[in-house]
Every structure is written in C-alpha cells, then in structure tokens.
C-alpha cells in the first residue's frame, strides 16, 4: 500500500519519543507546586492528547478542502479517517483531564470555559459521523460532510483557543497565550513535554494511516 510506504520513520520517532516521554515523565525533576504536587506530570500525557486531536483535525480539514477542489473520493476517505482518530484522542483528553481535575480542582467536571468548549467541539464532530451515516449516496455524502468538516474546524478555533482565553479559566493562558508564558511552563517541563507532544502526534498519524488502509479497502469492496 502506498499509504504505508513512508511510515517507517514515523513509527521509529513515535516509539522512541514516547518511551522517552514515559520514562522522563515519571522520573525527571518537576517544579514543586502546591495543590498540583506530583500530578503536574499529567501535563505530559493530558495536553498532548489535545495537540494530537487538533493536528489530526487540521489534516482532516485540509483534506476536505482538497476534496472540494479536486473532487477525488480518496480525499474524503482521508478526511473521515483523520477525524475519527482525532475524536478518539479528544475523548482520551477529556477522560485524562477529568481524573486530573478531580484531584486538583476537586470535581470531575467544572464549568470552566475550556472544558465546555472542548465538549461542544467533540459534540460537533460526533454529529459529523451522524451526518455521514445518514446519507447513502457516496458523492453526496462526501460533498456535504466535507463542507461540514471545514465548518466544524472553523468552530473549533474560537471554542478551544479564543473564548477560554477571554474569560477567567482554571486552565493556564487566560488573558494571553500560554505558549509564551514563562510562569506556566519552565525548561524542565518543556524538555519532556515537547517530545511527548511529537510522539503522540506521530502515534496519531500512525494509527490514522492504518485505519486509512482499512477504509480504502472497505470502499473498494
């Protein structure tokens, strides 16, 4: 399969970075902060889920654009596959975040704008699957779901990036960009955090490529 040809380096990077992230995530020094304590290490596993989700959704959105401009069904299959893997990572992000919230903020779900925003985003993407399964004509399904997918990605940006930063949020980054904030993350955390993000993104691509082969074969049958 052509899709699996360039997977060698992705697999290699994913495995080595994730092994490093899991070892470093548990053993390396972290800043000692009240309330968070050692659970600050959850950062290495919870946040990469969202980075992976957003990265895969971006690829999915680009493929939807390709489908609309080039009218080849393979782009729609790609976009569908990336979205399904991305939503899976989103659910892992919600689950891990709920556990973390229970032991630091005191409850599984708070009315934090970022939590509600990400929940709405996941619901929007779940209705993408409903929309797809409700249309039986292949071309029509591909066209409508491509347009919906682009709309959903356009909704994701304000819901996850803009709105939570405009109000008070328990998440870091309210009133600014957490990426450039030296108080939220120091060099120690970044040393494991970025490899972990890359490792999970590569893992997401790896799973997506496998699923893509499955979906392409399914379409051919």
């Amino acid at each position, binding site marked *: 399969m052509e899709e699996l040809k360039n997977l060698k380096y992705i697999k290699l990077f994913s495995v080595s970075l994730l092994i490093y992230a899991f070892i470093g*995530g548990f053993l390396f020094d972290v800043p000692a902060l009240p309330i968070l304590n*050692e659970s600050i290490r*959850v950062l290495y596993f919870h946040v990469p889920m969202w980075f992976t989700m957003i990265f895969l959704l971006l690829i999915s959105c680009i493929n939807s654009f390709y489908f609309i401009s080039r009218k080849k069904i393979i782009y729609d299959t790609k976009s569908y596959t990336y979205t399904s893997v991305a939503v899976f990572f989103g659910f*892992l992000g919600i689950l891990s975040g709920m*556990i973390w919230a229970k*032991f630091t903020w005191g409850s599984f779900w708070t009315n934090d704008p970022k939590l509600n925003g990400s929940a709405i985003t996941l619901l929007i993407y779940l209705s993408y699957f409903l929309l797809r399964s409700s249309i039986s004509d292949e071309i029509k399904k591909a066209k409508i779901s491509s347009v919906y997918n682009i709309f959903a990605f356009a909704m994701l940006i304000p819901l996850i990036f803009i709105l939570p930063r405009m109000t008070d949020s328990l998440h870091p980054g309210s009133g600014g960009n957490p990426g450039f904030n030296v108080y939220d993350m120091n060099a120690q955390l970044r040393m494991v955090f970025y490899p972990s993000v890359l490792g999970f993104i590569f893992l997401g691509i790896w799973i997506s490529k496998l*699923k893509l082969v499955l979906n392409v074969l399914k379409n051919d*049958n």
Partner: protein
Amino acid sequence: MIIEMIINFLSFFLNIQVEMADTFRSDGKIYVVILVALIILIGIFLYLYRIEKKINDMNKNK
C-alpha cells in the same frame, strides 16, 4: 451554615480527623499520574484492538 461553623469550631479543639480518600492523594498525588497514563495506554490498546478486529472481519468476508 451555622451548624457547619459550630462543627468546624469544635473540630478545631477536639482535633477530629475528617475521613477522606487520603491514600489516593498520598505520595504527592503520583497515583493520579499513573492512573492517567494507564487510561491513555488502555484507550489506545482498545482502539487498536477494534481496528484489528475490523480488518479480520473484512478478511473473513472476502
């Protein structure tokens, strides 16, 4: 509210221990990290298992 205040006031003198899930929060909450890492790993494994099952089903149908 008032009863709560009285209980708080009394417990300060009587040194009453409130029962909490302290064992899970002990050792600086490191078990939370282990739980989260496990959830993510198990989630990924189940997802891969589902993909494998779909592939096997497709091979059978051929």
